[in-house]
């Protein structure tokens, strides 16, 4: 466990774990030449980037409840060191996902852009994705220290609670992306919901130790 903790604390490990999923599509496209992927490679990339964004958003939101529920668990503490990095990567993947959507719909044809954006606003499913991306953009920008100081701790914290709204919207967007309900939405977001419920319930649970100290604003 100590080794895992040490590894997870390392910035290089965190970066590797965040970048590798983005490179994954290269494998079926250029190495195994999967004919199903090659039929429309960009669609595979599009869905994959959205999927990674959802996983990272759920992951970063799980960090705090993990620490609250298991305050002495080294792994939870190690993970919490990377909260900002993981959160910003969720935004980065969502941004790449949207860029891929633009490429997928319009190719290199810039004149198609207004129509694509108009459709994105008109279709609730697409609009929800766009709103999620906007929230993540605001959160990523304000994750800079200067904004924490400028907004003040309380307001900053309230603003960043929008991440929960983003997660709910992302879950809807992912569920609506396929013709039938894709089960991966459940295994990405249900564990997160359970962790959040446990975190809320913790002070009321009989076996629980004294209520946790207020969480520090920024992980050290």
């Amino acid at each position, binding site marked *: 466990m100590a080794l895992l903790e040490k590894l997870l604390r390392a910035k290089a490990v965190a970066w590797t774990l965040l970048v590798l999923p983005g490179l994954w599509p290269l494998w079926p*496209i250029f190495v195994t030449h*999967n*004919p*199903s*992927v*090659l*039929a*429309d*490679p*960009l*669609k595979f990339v599009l869905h994959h980037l959205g999927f990674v964004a959802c996983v990272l958003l759920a992951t970063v939101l799980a960090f705090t409840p993990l620490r609250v529920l298991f305050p002495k668990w080294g792994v939870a503490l190690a993970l919490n060191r990377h909260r900002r990095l993981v959160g910003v990567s969720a935004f980065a993947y969502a941004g790449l996902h949207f860029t891929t959507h633009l*490429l*997928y*719909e*319009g*190719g*290199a044809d810039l004149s198609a852009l207004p*129509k694509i954006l108009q*459709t994105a606003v008109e*279709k*609730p*499913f*697409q609009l929800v994705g766009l709103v999620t991306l906007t929230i993540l953009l605001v959160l990523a920008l304000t994750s800079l220290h200067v904004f924490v100081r400028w907004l003040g701790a309380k307001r900053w914290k309230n603003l960043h609670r929008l991440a929960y709204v983003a997660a709910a919207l992302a879950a809807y967007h992912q569920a*609506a992306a*396929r*013709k*039938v309900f*894709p089960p991966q939405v459940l295994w990405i977001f249900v564990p997160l919901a359970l962790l959040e419920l446990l975190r809320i319930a913790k002070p009321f649970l009989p076996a629980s130790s004294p209520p946790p100290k207020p969480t520090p604003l920024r992980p050290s």
Partner: protein
Amino acid sequence: MLIRSPKDWELPDSAATAEKFYRLSRRRDFLKTLGVAGAALATRSLFAATAGFPTKVNAAYRDPALKPTPYDAVTSYNNFYEFGTDKSDPKPNAAVWKTDPWTVEIAGLCGAPQKIDVNDLVAKMGGVEQRVYRHRCVEAWSMVIPWDGFPLAKLVALAQPKAEAKYLKMTTVLDPKNIAGQREGTLEWPYVEGLRLDEATNELAFIATGIYGRPIPNQNGAPLRLVTPWKYGFKGVKSIVKFELVAKQPRNTWNVMAPDEYGFYANVNPKVDHPRWSQASERVIGGDGGVFGSRQRTLMFNGYEKQVAALYTGLNLEKNY
């Protein structure tokens, strides 16, 4: 200057089926080499509907401007939820599925109800011909597929529909023991589709028993499936066991699943959007654009306006999507 206009039966070299597509598959070559079975026997054990091949090309349905989608893409990128919801699922999941022997039932309001082996049916239909059709999925992607089969009108004629028959209902096999997807509640099983009788007897409506001049692979709906090129792909009910003539419009599976998104008609229409995405354009599967792929404008009735528009005069296509 002398300009020679080609006759419509004159096909360019590009329209010819490439050798790799009509050559025996490696697996069957291998079986032959082993001497386990003759080619005919091996074919018989792999596919149910083997009657009628080699196919005759019907030049009237072979627009030289259409470039067929590579065989690999046509047989690896499939929506066949009975074998999994991902488009890469049906090929591996249906690989060992046995579709031989296969009996087709013709039933309902008709003068000649019958149960018939699929190969006997093909023989009665006068063998198979090849037509190259555009294929447009409701998910906004498209292919061009050389289908082998027979006109659905011939099957309807065989059934001898009674005067009160107005629709043709078609049903996929129900076999949850061997079809894993049917053990899950993804859709209502068995898959059902329907056509108005005048749609079913339109010259374009086709029953495919093959693609690219070979018996149709399981993942594409072996041994026989519907092809209605002016409609979205989900109308093309696969692995059909029953053709039933009925008086009332049958509820088709996707319409049951999401009535506000999928209608009965499902005619390709660039002006009527899906609630979640635009239908104005489509991705070209296996297109020339490499990794970035290519996109083209979607045509009214998928480019078959001339043949089918008359079927829908006076029908509000926005309401009857």
